[in-house]
């Protein structure tokens, strides 16, 4: 298991990626351990704030010892993050969470599925899957990404590592509808799914996967406090007894954020 620490990280670059969505590269030693699907807690400096903001890791560059965070501005904390310039330092807690079980895709057709701000963590996932060597190499890596409109951020980068399929709510690009509609319309085959996105999307994926006999791993989001498994703030209901409290509540920050869909009571 990787070591957790709270440390300063140097901003390498930051830019606007789409409306309200920012693209940030940080130099940090946690890059060497970071896996796709894991996240970091980022601290605002405003003294009125207490808690780190959980943000998923979009990409890892081990050579530069850097991680890429693609985040949406949702409040004053994330609004502060947009002000950081190259050379500035931010404080982060990490690396947190379990990440996607990439070996589950060995020899299989794997589909990474993202919706909205759930898209970013799947980029590193697609990259690692496409770069995997035998015996863990998947036979096919596809990506199905859902957006509101033609602002299909990161989709070109997915095409470097996978066959990309797009769904948009307004129908401006790809299939009109959601990621499941795109799966059906564009005949995307899957043995294994790795997904991140809003809860209704994840529920629909679980249902779809169950009906088709596909193995699905879902990355969840919840309001968090500590990020390290102590406060029990960010739980999700599970079908099996959890190992911490034995009450069918798993901790998203430490037992997750990625869960086998079969284990989730959604």
């Amino acid at each position, binding site marked *: 298991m990787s070591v957790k620490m*709270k440390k300063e990280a140097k901003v390498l670059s930051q830019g606007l990626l789409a409306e309200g969505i920012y693209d940030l590269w940080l130099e940090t030693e946690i890059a060497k351990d970071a896996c796709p699907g894991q996240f970091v807690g980022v601290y605002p400096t405003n003294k009125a704030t*207490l808690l780190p903001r959980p943000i998923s890791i979009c990409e890892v560059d081990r050579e530069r010892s850097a991680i890429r965070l693609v985040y949406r501005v949702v409040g004053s904390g994330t609004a502060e993050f947009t002000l950081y310039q190259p050379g500035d330092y931010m404080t982060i807690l990490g690396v947190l969470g379990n990440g996607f079980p990439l070996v589950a895709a060995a020899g299989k057709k794997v589909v990474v599925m993202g919706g909205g701000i759930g898209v970013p963590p799947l980029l590193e996932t697609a990259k690692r899957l496409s770069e995997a060597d035998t015996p863990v190499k998947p036979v096919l890596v596809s990506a199905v990404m859902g957006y509101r409109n033609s602002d299909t951020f990161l989709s070109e980068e997915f095409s470097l590592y996978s066959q990309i399929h797009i769904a948009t709510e307004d129908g401006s690009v790809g299939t009109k509808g959601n990621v499941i509609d795109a799966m059906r319309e564009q005949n995307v085959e899957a043995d294994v799914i790795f997904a991140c996105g809003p809860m209704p999307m994840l529920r629909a994926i679980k249902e779809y996967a169950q009906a088709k006999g596909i193995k699905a791993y879902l990355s969840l989001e919840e309001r968090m406090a500590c990020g390290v498994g102590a406060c029990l703030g960010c739980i999700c209901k599970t079908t099996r007894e959890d190992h911490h409290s*034995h009450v069918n509540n798993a901790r998203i920050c430490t037992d997750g954020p990625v869960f086998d869909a079969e284990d989730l009571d959604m």
Partner: protein
Amino acid sequence: MNTQVEIAGVKFKNPVMTASGTFGSGMEYADFVDLNKLGAVVTKGVANVPWPGNPVPRVAEVYGGMLNAIGLQNPGVEVFADRDLKFLEKYDTKVIVNVCGKSVEDYLEVVERLADEERVDMLEINVSCPNVKEGAIAFGQKSAALFDITSRIKEVARQPIIMKLSPNVTSISEMAKAAEAAGADAISLINTITGMKIDIHKRKFALANKTGGLSGPAIKPVAVRMVYEAAHAVNIPIIGMGGIANAEDAIEFIMAGATAVAVGAMNFHDPYTTEKVVKGIEEYMIRYGVEDINELRGIVE
């Protein structure tokens, strides 16, 4: 220089503890903090049986603090004794187990189950959690009920007991006196202050439980005032807590009359807070030539 403090015959290497519910049983924070350096680990509340807690969202940030309505999720005393107490065996720190329940019998069952556990140095009785509908806080808001539960626990407890008091009362002095009169060995305060947050964009409560307990730096002045009032009402030792972020805050509580202090919500902000407070207290003592931490207690007139 002496940083050791004593409560009911139990000697703590320094006055810095963890506030219940913010530190698990130390396992999760052992990645960050050397537990051997702490005066005590105060565990998350444990009941006679597992409790599932409240629905999510359970936490929300507010100005200078946070609200929580976890609802005392815990694995029950059997798992706790087998796993958490065993984990704590390898550390040279005192262990205070926080006990919760929905009825007097629930509390007594946990206290009796832990009676022979050598790793348990003290028990902290949580009669002040604002997030559990039955029991719990009902015992902590009426002095007669507090007196009753305290005396019944004292009859069966082998370890010294600390009654953890709620700030959601008219007179903290009256509650402190009731605990003392019933035989409590110490009191700890404050638990969280009941609060509420509304998301105006979604037109919904920020917490599924609607209300939650406010903690963090925002509550510190209230906590210091209540520790001061309680210290003037009773002679038993007090463990002070509420928004402690650094050594200066901790010393404020000690000067208000606390024998020991606990770090709570700020563990979430900075997992190294407890160790930093220990170090900062020593630096303060050197700076002002304080030989014994106990000289500072209640020193403010």
